[in-house]
């Protein structure tokens, strides 16, 4: 395609992405390096018949002028990145010197809000991803081996947990695990503990969120693997059967290698998807026990205060995390692109 034609075709989408993705990213970077102005204080001497007093008050006019002059606030460099709400270098150094072993070090820094969120985000990402891969593959293998009429119905119901809005899905499960809901009730009967509540402890909240994450993600791996199983080399399977390989051996030696590219694909997509976990924390009302990077940004942005600088800094750190996870995908795209020779 000629350069000029290409330009006109790409222009609308390019402008949309430039103004609403590229510029906002630049704005977020700049905001993360600035902090709001402090109020300018003014000290005046008030004299009345009983004597003179010095009163310090906010000079509203001067503060407003300063804000108009420099709307971004004052430049603080990387200070916000290093403050207590983010990377907290001082506190981490302090904890490192104080703690005797690694375990106590980790338990100390997991009280810092940003590290607390990182711990949950990483735990969530690296538990949900392998579990959903294995279960998705098992279900795909199962569905592949049963008769045809049921398949459409099974796929229909299987799509629900993924297609339904994550916030809605988690709210629905949250109501069911409520101590007055059916699952909560059932668990209390099973463990013979009328006070059992999945919302009360950090450990149980994490388990709940991970179970939700798996439930939400299984359909994706199931559908992709199921599609991959339709292209299995039939002659290889048949000759393996004649040679006496059982189902397990066939799966390990023929099926898994055949769908390996799909396993890589699903893994990479899921790592990035689970890294941005956010809605279930709102849906399960779990912020007291589990926070994620996305949740921190959301929390800073909301409410009356709208701490834009803090949110911007967390955003940049989150983008860094995503780019690290993205590197294998970028390399793959590089290798596959058909460059003009």
């Amino acid at each position, binding site marked *: *395609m000629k350069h000029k*034609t*290409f330009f006109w*075709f*790409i222009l*609308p*989408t390019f402008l*949309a*992405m430039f103004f*609403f*993705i590229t510029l*906002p990213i630049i*704005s*977020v970077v700049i*905001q993360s390096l600035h902090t709001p102005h402090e109020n300018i204080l003014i000290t005046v001497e008030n004299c009345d018949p009983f004597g003179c007093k010095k009163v310090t008050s906010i000079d509203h006019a001067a503060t407003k002028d300063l804000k108009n002059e420099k709307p971004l606030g004052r430049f603080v460099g990387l200070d916000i990145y290093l403050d207590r709400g983010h990377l907290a270098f001082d506190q981490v150094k302090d904890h490192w010197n104080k703690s005797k072993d690694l375990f106590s070090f980790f338990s100390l820094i997991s009280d810092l809000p940003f590290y607390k969120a990182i711990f949950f985000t990483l735990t969530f990402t690296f538990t949900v991803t392998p579990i959903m891969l294995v*279960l998705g593959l*098992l*279900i795909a293998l*199962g569905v592949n081996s*049963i008769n045809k009429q049921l398949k459409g119905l099974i*796929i229909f*119901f*299987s*799509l*629900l947990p993924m*297609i339904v*809005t994550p916030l*809605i*899905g988690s*709210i*629905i499960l949250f*109501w*069911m695990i*409520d101590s*007055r809901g*059916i699952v909560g*009730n059932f668990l209390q009967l099973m463990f013979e503990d009328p006070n059992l509540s999945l919302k009360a402890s950090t450990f149980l909240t994490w388990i709940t969120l991970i179970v939700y994450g798996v439930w939400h993600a*299984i359909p994706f791996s199931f*559908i992709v693997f199921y*599609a*991959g199983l339709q292209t299995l080399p039939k002659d290889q399977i048949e000759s393996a059967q*004649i040679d006496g390989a059982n189902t397990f051996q066939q799966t390990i030696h023929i099926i898994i290698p055949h769908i390996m*590219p*799909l396993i890589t694909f699903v893994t990479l997509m899921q790592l990035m998807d689970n890294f941005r976990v*956010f*809605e279930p924390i709102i849906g399960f009302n779990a912020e007291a026990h589990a926070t994620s990077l*996305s949740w921190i940004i*959301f929390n800073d*942005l909301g409410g009356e205060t709208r701490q834009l600088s803090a*949110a*911007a800094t967390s955003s940049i750190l989150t*983008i860094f995390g995503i780019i690290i996870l993205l590197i294998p*995908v*970028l390399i793959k*795209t*590089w290798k596959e*692109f*058909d*460059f*003009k020779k």
Partner: protein
Amino acid sequence: MNFNTSKNNKHNNLRNIIIYFLIFSWVFLAAFPFIWTFWGSFKVELDFFSIANWTNAITGENTEQTYGSPFTFVGYHGAWVQEEFWKAFINTSLVCFFVVFTSLTIGTLGAYALSRSNYKYTFWLLIMALIFRSMPPITLVAGYLPPFFEWNLWGILPTTIIVLVSINQPFTLWMLHSFFQNIPKELDESAKVDGCSQYQAFGHVIVPVMWPGIITTGLFSFLLAYNDFAVTSMLLSDENRTMIPQIAAFLGTTYTEGNVMFAVAAVVSATVPLFILIMFFQTKIVSGLTQGAVKG
């Protein structure tokens, strides 16, 4: 296969039992929460959250005592009429319609260009789109707020629609790009030999064969707009809220006022369109999910 001996048959029976057990437990886990909540949305709170006996949620004992029938539309009436959920429904419809329409229009043009060009800059545009696509949308919101407040663009639907279109462009471009790559380039070439310009070739030859791909991509644009919570809840004012942020807002207020059933009814109402969508477009959704994956 005639090689199976009777021992093998017994083995196969056991295997089939395990397979059916696995599949039916998954289908149960996937479907039951929705069926349960749908059924419960026609009950009163004392039945939906049953302290006395969990079977009340099925039989609706308290609902019958209060309203003389085990089914009641009180929750739905409360949500749609009293709490004016219909406004959120209309806002969602507007947002989804315009997001899908605009995304597809500019996305089809862009993706076509990307699939028919293999210069270096094409690659870098695709890479940029890939990076943008993987970024959580919430990370951009801090960049939107100051200018939107400054220029009084905050809180209204058109702003949110443009933002959602732009955020979804990277995804739309990649999906349509892989559909376009399945259409042989010879088709363009032969049209051009017949005297078409590149624009005419695109409009008269390529778009007609692209419809299945465009519809599939449209479904996913719809889902992205419909399901969005982070961006819509940050960029829309209270009266312009779409359904999902409105439900999140319900959660806070209805608990304190004892109107949990309003929230349950709202949640079920927001699930119904998705249910219908899967019913009609199941194969399209499946093909969209596997697009780009199966080819490796």
